[in-house]
């Protein structure tokens, strides 16, 4: 019995090292100078250039036109993440409320119209989506960045499941007390959903923050670049340079993964709950 325990720990330690070491190394290496990294390889201990590298990445004018800084890209990623999460919660709560709590003629049709969106991920319809967006003149706008991503059913699906689990008696009681649809929604349903809303908010924030393909297509103007778009940029500059700016690339990667890693670690239980409950 005792020996198997040690083996269990060994496997877990190896697994944890395999998963987390790259992140730790990325962080440590980002605090060294490019030349040092070039000659000595990746680093496992902190170097002395943390502040100047990050300051440079955050504030230096980059890109072709010099209009974008790391801080600006971070702000754009943040706008995308928060805008997407808020939009998703508002749209999907309203839609789920209508589907679960109202009797109306086209309920089943509306349900299917929304849920077929689960069938086609954005990746398979990028070309026509791009055409539609440029037709609407939404290239290089925050609207174009955020709103099309809202066209999916995931949030509606979560809230529908949740509303269905809310006890029937609440609505009966509310109706006896004379509450109408608006009052019931705002005074009963929204407060009840608080935890659910928080869980969905962080999941959706990370999802928005991590978007890559869509921002890449939608933004040609560097002022709208997100951090993910910046990563592609830095790799393109990288090809062909003598001593690539490894430290800056790593610093950008660290900035890009900081919020997702923090969110997962800090809100671990919510995150796991949101994921495993809603996918059922």
């Amino acid at each position: 019995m005792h020996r198997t325990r040690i083996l269990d720990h060994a496997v877990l330690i190896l697994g944890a090292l395999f998963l987390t070491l790259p992140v730790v190394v990325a962080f440590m290496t980002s605090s060294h100078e490019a030349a040092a990294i070039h000659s000595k390889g990746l680093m496992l201990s902190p170097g002395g250039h943390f502040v100047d590298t990050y300051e440079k990445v955050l504030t230096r004018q980059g890109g072709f036109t010099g209009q974008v800084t790391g801080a600006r890209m971070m702000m754009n990623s943040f706008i995308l993440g928060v805008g997407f999460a808020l939009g998703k919660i508002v749209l999907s709560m309203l839609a789920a409320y209508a589907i679960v709590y109202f009797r109306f003629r086209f309920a089943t049709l509306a349900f299917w119209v929304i849920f077929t969106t689960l069938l086609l991920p954005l990746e398979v319809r990028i070309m026509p989506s791009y055409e539609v967006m440029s037709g609407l003149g939404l290239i290089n706008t925050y609207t174009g960045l955020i709103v099309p991503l809202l066209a999916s059913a995931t949030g509606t699906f979560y809230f529908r499941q949740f509303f269905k689990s809310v006890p029937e008696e609440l609505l009966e009681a509310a109706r006896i007390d004379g509450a109408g649809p608006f009052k019931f929604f705002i005074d009963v349903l929204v407060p009840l959903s608080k935890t659910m809303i928080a869980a969905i908010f962080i999941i959706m924030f990370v999802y928005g923050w991590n978007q890559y393909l869509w921002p890449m297509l939608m933004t040609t103007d560097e002022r709208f670049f997100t951090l993910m778009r910046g990563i592609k940029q830095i790799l393109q500059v990288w090809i062909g340079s003598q001593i690539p700016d490894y430290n800056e690339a790593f610093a950008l990667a660290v900035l890009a993964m900081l919020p997702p890693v923090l969110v997962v670690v800090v809100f671990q239980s919510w995150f796991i709950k949101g994921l495993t409950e809603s996918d059922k």
Partner: protein
Amino acid sequence: MKRVQFSSPLLPYLFLAPQLAVIVIFFYWPSVRAIQSSFYLEDPFGFGSTFVGLDNYIGTLLNPEYLAIARFTAIFTALVTFFSLALGLLLAVKADAVIRGNATYKTLLISVYAIAPPVAGLIGMMFFDQHIGPFVKIAAFFGWEMKVGLSYFDTAFAMIVVAVWKQIPYNFIFFLSGLQGLPASVREAAAIDCRSSVKRFWTVIFPLLAPTAFFLLIINVTYALFDTFGVIDVMVKDKAANNPITLVYKVYMDGFRGNDIGGSSAQSVILMIVVFVLTVLQFRFIERRIHYT
């Protein structure tokens, strides 16, 4: 649905309107356009388009390059799915065995869950870099001269490692919550009946986890097919020539780089059918799972 419901002639439509508007404009319209333009040959200079029937599909499916990419996609998907599921399950079983007082492992193992595919790709590129990459040095020690970005096989290898790395935490979370949901009585009964813990796992525990495993199988196949786009885009650095790419990447390349709108659309529709089949499988399966839980 609920036994008691509101009935109002207008309100439900009002509540549904924003969601439906977004879906119709940004989902149905592009999807219909994709299907439509897959039957047309678009003039590259913008002078209209000609109806060509199934030519785009035939051209795509008979193209040896497309078939080679399809074959690579299948191998890539199979390997990524297998390794990320197997390692996720292994770690979940071990964490389940020692989890008491050991939330640290759990936190460490899921911490990288939400890292975006392109960031994973960038870190992967560094670890497989010619000059500074430790993996290249380890490979060199065993006499394997690794040239990621130049050699087809080596790039494929690195891409699979990165894609698996990124997906293990997801599978770990689901397997662990599946394991911890098993009733203690079942485990105790199994422990009395069967002394070998390995045998016990495969005959009692694993069959009980099968619903979770099947659900994850489909999620992982979808991940390997579509969500790895960022990993691939970063790792091939726009030089798809000698490098392995997947079908989704080919849609993007032909549509945006090659300006072959008809061909790209036909490929999109082919992928839509693949996703459609996967989703139907998933839904049928979810219905079944609800039955016996």
